[in-house]
């Protein structure tokens, strides 16, 4: 990316402006029934050490056998990131000792990853489009987990995660602000979920990021970077970048020097701090795993997976703007989650798409957010919301009544048409009934009548009164027309 960074991204220091440079390594757990090299289950939340095969426990003489579904998932991910798929890739051993690493090495891909360069497009809220380069995606094994709270003097090991497939998605250092870093991870997660290659559940650690941050004067070469390990929420990624950039700027401006190091983000304090440095510098002694032949894929396999690729967020967004006439922002919001987009399309089918977008984005999303619910388990189904929109379009209920109706459906369920009938929510369009109400108000407020005749804008007060008197059921347009006629404005 060679374009000059707009000023708004620059950070102010005591001695001038600074630019922050960010690259991310995202670890995404592959959606698969079995582990990368064994048949053991990957289900979350099982009792410790109940999902461990002989291979996962690195028993003598055990050998890894590649899970082909994990390969397909990595290829799908690569295709979704517009990346080069390497038909030949190699699994390497990354050697180090740790009790959560039974083999004494992690099987990973070092020099020849399965996916090469690609890119992700970010549409920022201000309208700018940022293209983030993908350096590579490779497959690797997850490690087990140490349990430090089981015994007074010893740590226990849970190997359920040992051998679970991860994709490491490495970006180029193309991000220039905390907001861009957040948008990137959100977009990446959205793409992975669309593809079904990772559930993106950051709370379970199924998606986590190592964030590389450095600062420089605009136009100068990259500064020394620090790596913030294992940040597991998008909000924390933003906080970590902001804090780390500020720390580095302050340090340099005070005459200090950045030391390349690994840091941890402390969400409680909102700051990063250096990890306790390991006694020995790591030399992972990578070499090709002799238990696994190089992975060769037929071009037909990749072509096949490409043909079956679902519509991805960027394509869907473009289609929503084109076919539904939605604004970029609305299309962006609706396509971020596959489920939300599908919900919207259900509601919009045969209806006014803008009204559907408004209701999904404002009423529904707002309510779901408030209760922390996912759209997949929304108490109001797309069919029910569609029916509410039909009632508005037919003039059967007003927009205001529709919101009440939405609340009723949210808490009690039921068919919106029937609820409107049973609860008498149908709006009144009967002219004589409305006329009676209007006449009563006019008679009771002769001064207001005078004022409205002088200034027709004040007719709104009469509309409000009439609606109130009708319990909101009067058709506002009918009331308006009638008043204009009655008052002669």
């Amino acid at each position, binding site marked *: 990316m060679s374009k000059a960074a707009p000023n708004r991204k620059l950070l102010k220091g005591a001695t001038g402006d600074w630019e922050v440079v960010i690259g991310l390594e995202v670890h995404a757990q592959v959606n698969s029934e079995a582990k990368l090299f064994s048949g053991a289950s990957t289900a979350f939340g099982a009792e410790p050490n109940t999902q461990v095969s*002989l291979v996962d*426990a*690195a*028993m*003598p*003489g*055990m*050998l*890894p*056998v*590649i899970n082909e579904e994990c390969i397909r998932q990595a290829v799908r991910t690569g295709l979704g990131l517009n990346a080069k798929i390497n038909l030949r890739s190699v699994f390497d*051993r990354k*050697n180090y*000792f740790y*009790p959560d690493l*039974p*083999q*004494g*090495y992690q099987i990973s891909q070092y020099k020849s990853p399965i996916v090469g360069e690609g890119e992700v497009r970010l549409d920022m809220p201000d309208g700018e489009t940022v293209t983030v380069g993908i350096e590579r995606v490779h497959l690797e094994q997850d490690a087990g987990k140490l349990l430090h709270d089981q015994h007074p003097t010893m*740590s226990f*090991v849970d190997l359920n995660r040992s051998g679970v497939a991860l994709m490491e998605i490495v970006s180029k250092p193309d991000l220039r602000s905390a907001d861009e870093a957040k948008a990137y991870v959100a977009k990446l997660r959205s793409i992975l979920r669309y593809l079904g290659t990772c559930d993106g559940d950051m709370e379970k650690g199924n998606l986590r990021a190592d964030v590389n941050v450095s600062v420089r004067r605009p136009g100068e070469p990259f500064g020394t970077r620090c790596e913030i390990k294992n940040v597991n929420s998008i909000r924390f990624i933003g906080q970590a970048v902001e804090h780390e950039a500020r720390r580095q700027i302050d340090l340099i401006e005070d005459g200090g020097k950045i030391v390349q190091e690994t840091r941890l983000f402390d969400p409680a304090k909102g700051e990063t701090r250096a990890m306790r440095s390991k*006694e020995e510098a790591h*030399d992972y*002694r*990578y*070499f090709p795993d*002799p*238990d*696994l*032949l190089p992975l060769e894929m037929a071009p037909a396999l990749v072509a096949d997976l490409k043909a079956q690729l679902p519509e991805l967020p960027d394509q869907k967004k473009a289609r929503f703007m084109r076919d539904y006439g939605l604004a970029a922002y609305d299309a962006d919001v609706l396509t971020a989650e596959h489920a939300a987009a599908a919900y919207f399309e259900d509601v919009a089918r045969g209806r006014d798409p803008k009204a559907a977008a408004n209701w999904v984005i404002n009423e529904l999303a707002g309510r779901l957010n408030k209760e922390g619910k996912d759209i997949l388990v929304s108490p109001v189904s797309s069919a029910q919301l569609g029916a509410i929109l039909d009632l508005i379009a037919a003039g059967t209920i007003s927009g205001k009544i529709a919101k009440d109706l939405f609340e009723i459906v949210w808490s009690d369920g039921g068919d919106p048409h029937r609820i409107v009938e049973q609860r008498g929510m149908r709006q009144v369009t009967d002219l004589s009934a409305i006329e009676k109400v209007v006449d009563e108000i006019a008679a009771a407020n002769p001064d207001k009548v005078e004022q409205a005749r002088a200034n027709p804008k004040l007719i709104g007060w009469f509309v409000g009164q009439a609606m109130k008197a009708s319990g909101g059921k009067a058709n506002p347009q009918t009331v308006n027309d009638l008043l204009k006629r009655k008052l002669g404005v």
Partner: protein
Amino acid sequence: MTELTALTLAEARDGLRKRAFSAAELTDAHIVAIERARALNAYVIETPDAARAMANAADARLKAGEAGPLEGVPLGIKDLFATKDVRTTAGSRILADFMPPYESTVTAQLWRDGAVMLGKLNNDEFAMGSSNETSCFGPVINPWRRTGSNKALVPGGSSGGSAAAVAASLCLGATATDTGGSIRQPAAFTGTVGIKPTYGRCSRWGIVAFASSLDQAGPIARTVRDAAILLRSMAGHDPKDSTSADRAVPDYEAALGKPVKGMTIGIPKEYRLDGLAPEIDKLWEQGVAWLKAAGANIVAVSLPHTKYALPAYYIVAPAEASSNLARYDGVRYGLRKPERDVIGMYEQTRAEGFGPEVRRRIMIGTYVLSAGYYDAYYLQAQKVRTLIKRDFEQCFAQGVDAILTPATPSDAFGIGEKGGADPIEMYLNDVFTVTVNMAGLPGIAVPAGLSSDGLPLGLQLIGRPFDEEALFALGAVIEQAAGRFTPARWW
């Protein structure tokens, strides 16, 4: 009737089918022989009860006419093969109590075919050694002695227990493994037949790993035919081993007796080492003469990168070993020496659990893979490996069917005689055999004569990939010409 333990595997198989004797009788005869031969230290664990149970089951199947190809045949198993609920140690203190809850593919196939397990056989620790002196159970004694001497000799290694047990008639055949010569060199030192099949021919699943890209299982037996019978049961595709070959297993026994007339045998000039013992040279010439007499064409060939094979092997094998042996950390199974912290536990466990030769190779392997040395050592060795492979390919492309070489540069040596001061002295034992592992080719060692000290000497035949049949056919010619070699019993 001859002593049951003196039968060849093929004779015993045929006798069992004819009900000339029972599997139980055959097994009992071997159990007695094993008990009498403890001085050889060939078995590290004897499993007579399980053996009798397996033999009885075999007898029932023989009676029912459901006999498998190895029904009732008693075998010894190298202690590198995981055997379910039978201690499997790899000859190492670090696995001294290890009881696998699983059975290696190769042994499972032997039991599937009706074989009987007599026990587990001694080997160099993690198969690292050429004399069986690095085992935590102590050295195996070669059943052969120099003429007029009582000096204890090594049986070769790492499959020293397998070779000694077969030579001393303590089993009808044995499983073995070969990473740089560990089947062929001990076979040559004990007057037995050993074949290392093509890499990928036998599954490595359940075999304690030494160097994954070189390790290959194979049999040691008393005759070429016996080796062919065993290999047929041991070989085959295994989806649990990604490097195992998905191709049909031929009837190797049927290859014996096939005419070798018109076959082309290459004699590589680079194997004529400076200072090669004249009797080895003479043996080689004798082998050439036998094959020529059988109608084979003899051609001189060149394998120019041979001299780099040994140094390259001693980089690749330790590199892989250093990583393969990282799992022995005291955390999940095997020896654990608790210390104040986990690093201390690793250090103490591995220092006490591994013997000096294993520690040496882990250190060499760690060194050649480390940053700054990887390119100069590991990468360079891999390039050499490619060149060695290409040497053979070019040779076979010229129409050579097999290559004849000596199996070892000498006959069996005395215990404690070699490698004490300089480990290279021991490593030189593998000079004729490592090239075959580096190229992934099949190689067979067949006894061909006796040295001036009255010890067996072997010749090696190297074949095209997956052409073990040619090796059995040619090996049978040598065997027929040279006769069989059996040690006089002193134990």
